[in-house]
C-alpha cells in the first residue's frame, strides 16, 4: 500500500477543516475518498471543497463501501467510541477527534477494540506538535528537572461567547456534548498535562456550571491533584474570562520550567534542591541556578502534523505522536474532576468508571434539550486560529 484512503465522518467545523486539508493534497500518502454526515447541507458544502470524495449520509454505508481503509471521526463526543469500534471491527485504522469519548467506560471499550483490531489508532491531540510542549516534555521525562514537585497551569484564555454556545443544539449540554470546558476546550491541556507530567493518583475539583453563560454544563473548573511521588498539580480553566492567561509552570528538584507567551523559560539548579536543603549552612542561601530560554519559529504543524504522522504510522510504521490509547488519560482526569465536584470528595485514579457513569446518567436525564440551532455556523473548511495553541 503506498497510500491510505480515508473517510471522514462528521463534517462540521473541525471535520470540514480536516477534509479540506486532505483534499487539497496537503498530507502525503493520504487521500480523502469519502465524507459522511447526516446533514445534507454539509454534504453539499463538501462537494465544493472535496469534489472527489464520495458522499454518504449513513456511517455504515461509508464503512461498507470499500472506499476507505481508515476513518477520521469528527462527530459529537458521545459517538466517538462507538464509531471507532465499528471501524475496528472492519479492520480499519482510526483517527478520532478529541475527546476520545465522554466517559471512561466507553473509552476503555474502544481501547480494547483497538487492541483486538491491531490497527493504527490515533487521536487528534494537535497541540502535542507544539515545539515548546515537546521541549518541556523532554526536560521533564528526561530527568533534567529531577524529581517532579509541582505543576501549575492557568489556562483561562479559552473565552467563548453565549452566541458560541447557542450555535449548536448539542453544545454545552450533558446529553449532547457530555460536559463543558473540560470536555471541549480543555482536553488538549489535560492531555498535555499528563503527557509531560504523568497521571496523578487522586484529585479534588470544583466545577462551576453556567457561571458566565446560560448553559447547564461547567464553564469554569479548578482541579488540585496529587501524585504518588508527592508532587502536586493545580489546573485552572474557564471559558468566561477575557483576555485570560495561558501559563504553565513545572517545578522539580533540579529546576523550573515556565511556558508563557510563546516562550519556554528554564531555570536549572546546579545542585538538587533536596541535597542543598540539608547541606546549606547559610540560612539565607539558595542553590545556584542557570537560566535558558527556548522559543520556536513556528508552533508546529498542529492538525496537519497529526494527520501526516497518522499516515506515516500506517504506511511506514512510524511511531505515533498521539496514540489513540492515550485519550483515556485525559478523560480519566476530567471524569474524576466532575465526580469530585459532584460528590465533594477526593476521587482516586484510576477512576471508578461505573460510579462516574451513574452520576453522568442522572445529569443526562435532566439535560435540557436545546433548539437545534439558534445561529448555525457555516463550516468554512479552515483550521481556525482558536484551535491552535494560543498564548
Amino acid at each position, binding site marked *: 500500500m503506498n497510500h491510505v484512503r480515508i473517510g471522514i465522518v462528521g463534517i462540521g467545523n473541525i471535520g470540514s477543516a480536516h477534509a479540506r486539508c486532505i483534499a487539497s493534497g496537503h498530507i502525503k500518502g493520504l487521500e480523502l475518498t469519502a465524507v459522511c454526515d447526516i446533514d445534507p447541507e454539509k454534504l453539499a458544502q463538501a462537494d465544493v471543497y472535496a469534489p472527489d470524495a464520495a458522499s454518504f449520509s449513513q456511517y455504515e454505508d461509508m464503512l461498507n463501501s470499500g472506499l476507505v481503509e481508515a476513518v477520521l471521526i469528527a462527530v459529537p463526543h458521545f459517538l466517538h467510541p462507538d464509531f471507532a469500534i465499528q471501524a475496528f471491527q472492519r479492520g480499519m485504522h482510526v483517527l478520532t477527534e478529541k475527546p476520545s469519548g465522554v466517559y471512561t467506560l466507553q473509552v476503555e471499550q474502544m481501547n480494547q477494540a483497538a487492541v483486538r483490531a491491531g490497527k493504527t489508532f490515533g487521536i487528534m491531540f494537535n497541540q502535542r506538535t507544539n515545539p515548546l510542549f515537546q521541549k518541556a516534555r523532554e526536560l521533564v521525562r528526561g530527568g533534567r528537572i529531577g524529581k517532579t514537585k509541582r505543576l501549575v497551569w492557568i489556562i483561562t484564555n479559552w473565552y467563548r*461567547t453565549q452566541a458560541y454556545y447557542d450555535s449548536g443544539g448539542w453544545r454545552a449540554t450533558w446529553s449532547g456534548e457530555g460536559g463543558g470546558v473540560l470536555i471541549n476546550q480543555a482536553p488538549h491541556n489535560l492531555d498535555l498535562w499528563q503527557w509531560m507530567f504523568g497521571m496523578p493518583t487522586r484529585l479534588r475539583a470544583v466545577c462551576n456550571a453556567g457561571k458566565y453563560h446560560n448553559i447547564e454544563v461547567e464553564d469554569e473548573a479548578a482541579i488540585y491533584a496529587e501524585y504518588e511521588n508527592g508532587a502536586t498539580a*493545580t489546573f485552572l480553566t474557564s471559558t468566561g474570562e477575557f483576555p485570560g492567561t495561558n501559563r504553565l509552570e513545572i517545578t522539580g528538584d533540579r529546576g523550573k520550567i515556565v511556558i508563557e507567551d510563546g516562550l519556554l523559560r528554564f531555570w536549572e539548579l546546579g545542585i538538587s534542591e533536596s541535597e542543598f536543603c540539608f547541606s546549606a549552612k547559610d540560612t539565607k542561601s539558595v542553590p545556584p541556578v542557570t537560566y535558558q530560554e527556548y522559543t520556536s519559529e513556528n508552533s508546529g504543524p498542529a492538525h496537519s502534523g497529526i494527520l501526516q504522522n497518522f499516515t506515516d504510522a500506517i504506511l511506514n510504521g512510524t511511531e505515533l505522536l498521539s496514540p489513540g490509547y492515550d485519550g483515556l488519560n485525559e478523560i480519566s482526569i476530567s471524569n474524576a474532576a466532575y465526580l469530585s465536584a459532584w460528590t465533594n470528595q477526593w476521587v482516586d485514579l484510576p477512576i471508578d468508571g461505573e460510579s462516574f457513569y451513574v452520576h453522568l446518567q442522572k445529569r443526562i436525564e435532566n439535560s435540557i434539550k436545546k433548539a437545534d440551532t439558534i445561529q448555525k455556523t457555516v463550516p468554512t473548511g479552515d483550521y481556525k486560529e482558536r484551535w491552535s495553541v494560543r498564548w
Partner: protein
Amino acid sequence: MNKIKLGIIGIGNMGSGHINNVLEGKCPEIEIAAVADIKPDRLQWAADNIPTAARFDTAEAMMDSGLIDSILIAVPHYDHPKYAMAGFERGLHVMVEKPAGVYTKQVGEMNEAAKKANVIFGMMFNQRTDHIYRKMRELVQGGELGQLRRTNWIVTNWYRPQCYYDSGAWRATWSGEGGGVLLNQCPHNLDLWQWICGMPVKVKAHLHFGKWHDIEVEDDVTAYVEYANGATGTFITSTGDTPGTNRFEITLDKGKLISENGKLLMWKLEQSEPEFSKTNKKPFGSPKAEFIEVETDGKSEQHVGVLNAFAGAILHGTPLIAGGEEGINGLTISNAMHLSAWLNQEIMLPLDEDLYYNELMKRVKTSRRKENVSEIVSDTSGTYNA
C-alpha cells in the same frame, strides 16, 4: 525635633533589624529609648550596638520604667497579643510584628483591648508600602476594572534551607511558632491578598507538613477560596521551591492585572465581559482589550516606612501603613487554611475560633522538642520578597 520614645521587645532577627534602621538615621522621629530581651547575649548585643538604650530582661520592667511611650513587639508569635495588651493597659502606643498572633481568638481579644485603650496601634505589614501593591489596591478597590472574578497568587519564592529552621528552637513547631510558612513568611501575602481583593467567604486548603524539611509544620500549601460574589481564588506557597515564583494575578470582569518581576501589567476591556456577552451575536467575538504597563511612583519604603508612619501617627495624627486591628484578617485566612487541612473539609468564614483553637492545641500538646538547634541571629535583609 520631637521623637517617640520606642521600646523594643525582642531583639532577635527582626528586633535588631529595626534597631539598625534607626541607628542608620532612617527614622528621624524615633528614639530607641529601651530594649528588652530574656536572652543575656541579645542584651549584650544591645549594649555593644545601641548603648544609649536602657536594657531590661523583662518586657514588663521596660514598660513600667517610664522611659518609653511606645513599644515594638518582635518576640515569637504566640506572645504578640499578650505584650500588646500589656502595652495598652499602660497607655503605650503599640506596633506589632507580623503575624498579629497565632490564633484569631487571642487576636480578637487584642483588638478589643486596643479599642478601649485609645492609643496608636499598628501592624508591621511593610509590604503594603510597595508601589505595585498600592497601585493594585487602588485599581481593584477603585472599581475601574469592574467586579472581581479570579485571584491567583503563586508565591513560591520563599525558599528556606533546613538550617534556617534549625536556627531557633521556637521555629517551625506548633508550640513555638504556631505554624509554618503560613505563619511566618505568608502573613505578608495573606494580608496583601485581602487588602487588595477583600476577604473570601469559603476556604479549602491542601497543606503538606514537613514535606521538604524536617519540621512538623506546613511548608507547602495549595488553597482554593471563594468570595461572596462568586469569584474564586487560589493561593500557592512553599518554602521548598527554588527558584520559585511570585506572580499575583487578578482577573475582573472588565480587566486583568498581573504583578510579577517588579512590573504591574494591566489589560483593560472597553466594556465589561457581561455587557459584551449580552449584545454580542458573533460566536467567536471577544471584547476589545487595551494592554498597559502601569506606571507607579516606584517607592517601597518597607519597614522604615512603617516605622516612620507609626511615629507620624503618634506625633502628628497622620495615617498608619496598616492599622493593628487589620492583622486579624490575614490570620483568619491562615487559620482557615490550617483548619481546612486538619479536618479535610471546606471552611466557611467567619471562622469558628474555638474549633480552631482546640485543633491547634491538640497539635501543640504533641509538638516535638527540637534537638539540633544552632541558634543563629541573621541579617535578614534581602529575604523579605518585598
